[in-house]
């Protein structure tokens, strides 16, 4: 997709073009610079806070010292809990929508709903989770309520990546398998899914990243302001990394004294996102190669 500027282009045209391109390049690099500044700022301030003690101890002295261990455990529980719900349901709906459902009003309806769910603001998920899981179902502020709320939020991400990875697979695989006498499910489970698998996992990883950083949906469904112990059951409240960062940077007992803790927590959140993105990118490349190979 390359252009060839003919010699006929006169000077002023070329000048305008050069000026425009320089501006565009500059603005694009500004976007990169924004990211670099944010990352560098949090990494440089945060990395000195990270220590074994910070990662494995309870917060102390009004959350100005000690560590963030319960928040790490809490976020881990929430991520696992939400994925236990969102991953199977999301992958199965993706399969259903792409492999089974015929084009028609029902498919359009589900598509529309999925798109709308993806656009619902996270605080609305929080309201919904509170009304349904916490109050109506009586789960109270608990890991269960928080995980389900976060799971619903992650659902559209999982569905979309599943669908996209299934769509990328050529129909000849399906037709070939069916022609050999395999049933629809045999075709899906033994031919299509193994190829799509790495890309579906990408969706899982990306939603782990999304879920681990979300604050608004857990505000009223699970997050504890300060709870220096580990959860015993799925009906316990937990601390969570993003909420902890919010608390100690805005409403802690001593905001200035807990700044170091805040930088450390922000660093851990950034680290999770970096790992998630690297992993997803690597898997995507792996998948692209595999599809090509087949």
């Amino acid at each position: 997709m390359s252009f060839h500027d003919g010699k006929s282009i006169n000077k002023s045209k070329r000048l305008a073009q050069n000026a425009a391109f320089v501006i565009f390049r500059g603005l694009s690099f500004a976007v990169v610079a924004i990211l670099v500044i944010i990352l560098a700022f949090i990494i440089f301030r945060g990395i000195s806070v990270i220590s074994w003690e910070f990662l494995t101890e309870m917060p102390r002295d009004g959350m100005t010292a000690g560590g963030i261990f319960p928040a790490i455990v809490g976020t881990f529980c929430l991520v696992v809990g939400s994925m236990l719900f969102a991953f199977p349901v999301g992958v199965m709906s993706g399969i259903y929508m792409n492999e089974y459902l015929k084009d028609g009003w029902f498919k359009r309806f589900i598509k529309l709903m999925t798109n709308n769910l993806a656009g619902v603001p996270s605080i609305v998920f929080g309201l919904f989770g509170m009304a349904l899981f916490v109050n109506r179902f009586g789960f109270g502020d608990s890991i269960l309520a928080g995980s389900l709320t976060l799971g619903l939020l992650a659902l559209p991400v999982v569905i979309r990546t599943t669908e996209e990875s299934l769509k990328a697979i050529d129909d000849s695989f399906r037709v070939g398998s069916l022609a050999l006498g395999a049933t629809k499910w045999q075709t899906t489970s033994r031919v299509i899914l193994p190829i799509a698998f790495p890309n579906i996992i990408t969706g899982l990883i990306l939603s782990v990243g999304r879920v681990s950083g979300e604050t608004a949906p857990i505000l009223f469904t699970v997050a504890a302001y300060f709870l220096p112990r580990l959860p015993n059951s799925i009906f316990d409240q937990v601390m969570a990394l993003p909420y902890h960062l919010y608390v100690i940077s805005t409403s802690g007992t001593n905001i200035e004294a807990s700044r170091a803790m805040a930088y450390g927590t922000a660093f851990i959140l950034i680290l999770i996102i970096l790992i998630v993105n690297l992993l997803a990118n690597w898997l995507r490349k792996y998948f692209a190669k595999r599809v090509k190979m087949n």
Partner: protein
Amino acid sequence: MKRYFHNLGEKIIVALLALSGTVTSLTVLLIVFFLFKEGLGIFSLSPVSEGTVIAVNSQNPVKELSAHQLKEISDQNITNWQEVGGPNAPIKLFRIDDLTEYFSEEQLGKDFEFVPQRINEVIAKEPNMLAFFPDEYLAKSFQGRQLQLDNISVPDFLGGTEWYPTITPAVQMGVLPLILGTLWVSFGAILLALPLGLATAIYMAEIANSRVRNILKPVIELLAGIPSVVYGFFGLVVVVPLIQDIFGLPVGETALAGSIILGIMALPTIISVSEDAMRTTPRAMKEASLALGASKWQTIYKVIIPYSISGISTAAILGIGRAIGETMAVLMVTGNASVIPNTFLEPVRTIPATIAAELGEAPQGGIHYKALFALGCILFLLTLIINLTVDFVSAKKKENR
């Protein structure tokens, strides 16, 4: 027989898949149901603060007061009954704390058991009195007249300019400052993000070579992945003090800080959507333009941008959608003052930030709780409008092809 089980297995699997497929649709419907069930409840409640009695002397001709009038009286901005349709007489306010001015402790009783009776006496004695007191002190044979307030109406709720959801004697539930705050911050964000995002999209789609593009793509994904609370924290420790210094403000938590942070957060959406749109420009069109002697830049702004304009508008709309719904970052940097903003250098409060900040303190099922759900409804409708607009724009685009 084996075949029969086989078929049965297939059927169960299909049923399971179909069930999962409908979960998302059900979720959206459930969200709508719960949101509106709780939220619309606000319109069947009176704005009198919970557990408060508002009473006047039985001789007083004033039958109705609005929540706004009550607040003005309580703030002593209205001091004469004439202003609210009564006789020309000063309004004498009575609150429960004032009781000691009228009676000694003995008269009130050791366990305050005579308080209801004493309140009754005070109101009966003073024809110009307007009394607010907790309903536990309402005497059984109360001789004054209790004022009932009209339920909160839709125009009051949407058009009211004051948001004081917890004051007594009557709560003020006007969401206009919150709606305007949300739109104000979001449009500011788009103003900042759109030029930057579009330029990056054009650069990535048409100008950069694949090596640069391979650097830019993950950068934009990372920008999209950073949690909003981290953006908020960055805004709090970097952007807010910066704004405070540059403009010499008493506080740096302003609409501008919110717009800057939200603008950064909206960038990935704007870039990726508009880049995708530009990429769909048919090669033949570009080449025809070049063959006619247009430069690459002329081709970009006379062919590619007009061709992908619907995609670009989709990008802008989605960016606004992202900004409107964003909660934590805004909550942390905008200062959260519920006043209608005049400039970008004032604190504002948005709808999501209000819900996040206040729902924890609102008693479940009360008027404040319902008001926050009603705010959730407004937010949901705003994003629904945005989604439908996007659907409409892209459907139209398909039609045009």
